[in-house]
């Protein structure tokens, strides 16, 4: 059954993957064969550009459409279209030819209804709206109007035919849709969870909207366990917990997981603030040396969601300390008397290594069909950038990649991977080889710090003033300077 899916005009790349993930989540689980390509069927309205907020989507049932719309972040609504056309005459004809048995149940005299006039790319004044509503008189509405809480909601939506169309390529011809709302979005979620009202946030806390998108991509749902190996202030887990999943997080920085900013301002208080169940556990753990027990394989996590530190706003760290990792000092043992409060030292942790460890962890710990959702940075100068440049792993299949442009220099891509195969030693070995190969090809910018400098270095070297260049004193940026 075809529905019209109208999106909010944001994060264009994220829209279809979200709907597809939710279709899988709410769909018939027995039917959802993981090996099958579970992509939905999409169709664009006449004359529309792929970036248009209007898309037709083929969904098996109305209940599924409602569930998707209610949970989705980027879907404004899903509609059963009664008629469409390039002009109001065409629309009238189209509505009249729509089968009566599909219309009549929603036009009965006992029911209440509401019609909303909406537009994309222009504003319609109230008078114009009223005029348009009067034009709809050919539809035999028998019910009463109820604007606050109607039984059935109808929408009249039109697009503009002018050249400028919210940054989209111009729509050749305007299109008018009339349909019945099957499900609408709940964007109230976002102001509730917005970062500025959250107690404890850090410099890299995940924006609420994106965090919910990630949770949706990971199919977070009650009874599932979601893990974030770079938990930070817990901003991603909050979204997963909102959808009922049990959460667990780890971070190498003891300050965020243990202390926060005091008793009422830490990761736990973030969950308390929204009345969400507390995470099962927060660990201080190293993604490079995971502390999981050996027998714990393919059993634990239903999803792993994270935003790995890629060195632009925060760099990665791993256990060991600078000197230890270089090999200048040999591994030490902590004397017994200092052991109780010892915090191990950490050293730099490059992104390639980090992603490799993440994939390895996910391959080991996710249940079959479990999802790994993470952000991966991409430099936008790479014109030859193609999909196979993403890190991969023999256990995983990439199901979605959505780009979010952050600046003219770089963007980040949300990768969603599904675990397809079991984790074995051979698989781990293949993965390691692939990782080395991947590292070779990407070393130039992935290595630690390089991404940072390509993002922040000035575009053109500024003409150096002789006065300043004379100053031989080096400027250090460090902890005590």
């Amino acid at each position, binding site marked *: 059954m075809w529905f019209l899916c109208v999106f909010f005009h944001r994060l264009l790349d994220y829209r279809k993957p979200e709907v597809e993930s939710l279709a899988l989540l709410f769909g018939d689980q027995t039917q959802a064969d993981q090996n099958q390509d579970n992509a939905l069927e999409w169709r664009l309205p006449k004359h529309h550009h792929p970036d248009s907020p209007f898309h037709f989507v083929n969904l098996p049932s109305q209940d599924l459409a409602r569930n998707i719309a209610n949970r989705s972040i980027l879907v404004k609504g899903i509609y059963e279209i009664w008629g469409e056309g390039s002009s109001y005459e065409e629309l009238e004809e189209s509505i009249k030819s729509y089968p009566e048995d599909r219309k009549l149940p929603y036009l009965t005299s006992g029911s209440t209804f509401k019609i909303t006039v909406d537009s994309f790319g222009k504003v319609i004044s109230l008078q114009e709206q009223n005029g348009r509503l009067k034009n709809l008189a050919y539809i035999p509405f028998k019910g009463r109007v109820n604007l606050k809480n109607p039984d059935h909601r109808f929408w009249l939506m039109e697009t503009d035919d002018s050249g400028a169309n919210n940054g989209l390529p111009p729509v050749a011809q305007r299109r008018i849709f009339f349909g019945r709302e099957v499900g609408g979005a709940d964007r109230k979620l976002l102001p509730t969870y917005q970062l500025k009202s959250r107690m404890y946030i850090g410099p890299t806390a995940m924006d609420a909207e994106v965090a919910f998108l990630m949770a949706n991509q990971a199919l977070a749902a*009650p*009874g*599932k*366990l979601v893990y974030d190996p770079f938990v930070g202030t817990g901003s991603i887990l909050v979204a997963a917990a909102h959808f009922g999943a*049990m959460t*667990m997080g780890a971070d190498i920085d*003891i300050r965020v*997981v*243990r202390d926060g900013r005091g008793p009422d301002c830490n990761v736990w208080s973030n969950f308390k603030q929204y009345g969400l*169940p*507390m995470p*099962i*556990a*927060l*660990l*201080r*753990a190293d993604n490079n*040396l*995971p*502390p*999981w*027990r*050996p*027998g*714990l394989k393919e*059993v*634990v996590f239903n999803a792993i969601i994270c935003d790995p530190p890629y060195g632009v706003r925060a760099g990665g760290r791993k256990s060991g300390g600078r000197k230890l990792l270089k090999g200048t000092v040999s*591994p030490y*043992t*902590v004397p*017994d008397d200092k*052991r*109780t*409060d*010892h*915090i*191990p030292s950490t050293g730099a942790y490059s992104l390639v290594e980090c992603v490799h460890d993440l994939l390895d962890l996910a391959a080991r710990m996710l249940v079959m069909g479990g999802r790994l959702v993470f952000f991966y940075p991409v430099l936008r100068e790479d014109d030859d950038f193609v999909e196979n440049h993403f890190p991969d792993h023999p256990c995983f299949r990439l199901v979605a990649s959505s780009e979010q442009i952050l600046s003219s220099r770089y963007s980040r891509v949300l990768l969603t991977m599904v675990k397809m195969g079991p984790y074995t030693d051979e698989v781990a070995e293949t993965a390691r080889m692939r990782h080395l190969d991947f590292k070779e090809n990407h070393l130039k910018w992935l290595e630690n710090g390089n991404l940072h400098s390509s993002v922040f270095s000035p575009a053109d070297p500024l003409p150096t003033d002789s006065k300043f260049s004379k100053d031989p004193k080096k400027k250090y940026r460090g902890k005590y300077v």
Partner: protein
Amino acid sequence: MRLLTHNMLSSNIKGVTNGFPLGIEVVKVVEKQVELNADFLKNMFHKIDWKGLVDGSRAMGYFELPGEPPETSALESEEFLSKFHHALLELHLEEGALVCPETGNICHFASTLRGFPS
């Protein structure tokens, strides 16, 4: 730290082949009320190392769990679920230490500081 977490951790010092289960040295245990989620418990039941859980819960002074792993049918009994739930999620090791089973060391990563395995 909850026993669910304990059940998933092992000693990761170099040279240790089987760092599970970590021994628990209790200084202080607190109980925190958590809402019971039966679906989650059923989901977790198959993933738990039963011996590790029982030993852990006994170390923390909770003796209600049977020593042998119960049949899956036990999950239908509410009494068992609530005991399992209590052991898994409500017992918190607030202060104490985790001991590596092989070296007998308090592994430097595994001492718990104010309830956080580190």
